[in-house]
């Protein structure tokens, strides 16, 4: 089987992030890795913490946590990454804030039609910092909606929804719907006049959808009118079902972000080293290695190093060049969505 061995090799040569990583030294001349390991086993020290400083190493050797760290925080991002790319994380932060403040609000809230309003006034007026925590939750809900729309706008206007990231867009749309459902179900919980009538209206709007609308409204209200069961139902949805779904989908969303990498802004032109073949000879969907990507915090190398330009025969074996994920999980795939530059504009 042909595998992209050269890439693996270069990955191994990368310096390890955490100290205590026994493999870090493997690349240096000296005793080979297997020899070192044999010595450790003889000394009974393999996979054991060598003093306090190696706790991280001990955990790492069991969980590959440095790999996770590298994938999440030390991954390659495209040149031109800017503040707009933080909108997704900002949304995620607000979601975490809602989850935390929500748990504490639940300590005082009573989901019953006769006690809900009183429990909210008690929480707001009597409980220490209650108004502040409730305020965070209440304002945070609006903020999350604003941020999720800005984030969606960012991915839309940067064309980040295109191949291979369509699925992340789809997951995003589901997250958007679930976030608005959180807003709807949360609004009823104080059970004051405004909550009640807003919910009545929202249910009427739901019911006005043809064919399924009337049944969907009955499902939401748990009957033909908004009543006591509606409150319990919204409480369960708001507290348990929807947050769980959102958390799971954020996990999937982030997994895809890490796996596929992020898109370069549309105004960043991919540079093409001199002598590289023109775009027309590159099979569609095969990432080109000259994509404008640099490790975080580093300037782009103006001249490509020899090993970065194995493009002499890009069309020779598409399986070797790999699809978007190419079987080398740690590596950033080049972005096929970015506009390839003309040969004339190549190499900055």
């Amino acid at each position, binding site marked *: 089987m042909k595998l992209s061995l050269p890439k693996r090799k270069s990955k*191994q040569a990368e310096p390890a992030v955490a100290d205590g990583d026994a493999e870090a030294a493997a690349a240096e001349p000296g005793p080979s890795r297997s020899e070192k390991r044999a010595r450790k086993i003889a000394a009974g020290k393999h996979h054991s913490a060598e003093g306090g400083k190696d706790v991280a190493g001990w955990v790492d050797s069991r969980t590959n946590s440095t790999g996770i760290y590298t994938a999440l925080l030390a991954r390659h991002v495209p040149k031109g990454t800017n503040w707009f790319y933080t909108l997704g994380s900002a949304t995620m932060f607000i979601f975490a804030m809602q989850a935390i403040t929500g748990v504490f609000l639940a300590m005082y809230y009573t989901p019953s039609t006769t006690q809900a309003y009183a429990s909210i006034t008690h929480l707001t007026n009597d409980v220490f910092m209650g108004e502040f925590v409730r305020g965070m939750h209440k304002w945070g809900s609006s903020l999350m909606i604003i941020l999720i729309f800005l984030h969606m706008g960012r991915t839309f206007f940067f064309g980040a929804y295109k191949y291979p990231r369509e699925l992340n867009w789809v997951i995003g749309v589901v997250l958007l719907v679930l976030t608005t459902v959180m807003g709807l179900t949360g609004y009823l919980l104080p059970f004051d006049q405004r909550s009640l009538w807003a919910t009545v209206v929202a249910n009427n709007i739901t019911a006005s959808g043809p*064919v399924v609308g009337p049944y969907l409204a009955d499902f939401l209200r748990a009957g033909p009118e908004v009543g*006591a069961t509606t409150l319990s139902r919204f409480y369960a949805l708001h507290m348990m079902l929807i947050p769980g779904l959102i958390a799971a989908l954020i996990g999937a969303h982030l997994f895809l972000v890490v796996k596929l990498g992020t898109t370069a802004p549309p105004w960043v032109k991919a540079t093409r080293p001199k002598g590289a073949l023109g775009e027309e000879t590159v099979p569609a969907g095969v990432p080109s290695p000259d994509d404008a990507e640099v490790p975080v915090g580093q300037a782009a190398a103006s001249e490509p190093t020899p090993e970065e330009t194995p493009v002499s025969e890009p069309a020779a074996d598409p399986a070797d060049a790999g699809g978007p994920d190419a079987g080398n999980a740690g590596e950033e795939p080049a972005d096929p969505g970015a506009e390839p530059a003309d040969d004339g504009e190549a190499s900055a």
Partner: protein
Amino acid sequence: MSDSKNNNSPAEEPPRVTLPEAEPRGYFEGESMTRRKVFTAASLALGGVASMAVVLPVVGFAVAPLFERGRERWVAVGRLDDFKPDTYKQVVFTETPGIGEVGKTTAYVRQGSAEFDEDPGEYLAISTRCAHLGCPVRFVQAAKNFICPCHGGVYDFEGKRIGGPPVRPLDRFQTRIRNNHVEVGPRYSVTNQLKAVRARDPGEFTGGIWEYLYPPRPSTYPPPSN
């Protein structure tokens, strides 16, 4: 790993162990395709049965209210001679029990009048819930119209829509006479021709093809026959 840097000299590379090729490819030697298929299918089926055993009752539990009709409630709203055929009297009663004040609703009640070919012995209770989005309408005696404060919906004396965004006439409540008192019962909706149909939510059309686009829900009461 043959060309890895970790190998000091390529000559020391251990000889490759070649496993016997299994047929079909990807299967262990001696393993038959059917055996693996049977186990895969069995695990999926068992897992499916186990998950369904949990999911079906839970979903049914959540969906059940769709098919449940609440207890039929009849509330006395006034004596027979409280109501006249030429004007409406406002009454307030509890439509949804158990949620306090907000469970109350308002209706306008009058005696049937010969003018609108209703049986003068009957009583008519019109719901104040606007057929547009559910705001409370008000009866204006001078105009003999119901007027909605929200988006300007206007209904005539019988509750038929004569202006604004509402999609059908005002809902009604069934009425009956008990012990010299008028009692109001379940809600129902009407078509533009005032034909009684099962109660619809605000915003839903009634009559004709709309009966299929906004189908009647099992949680509502059958309309009175007319």
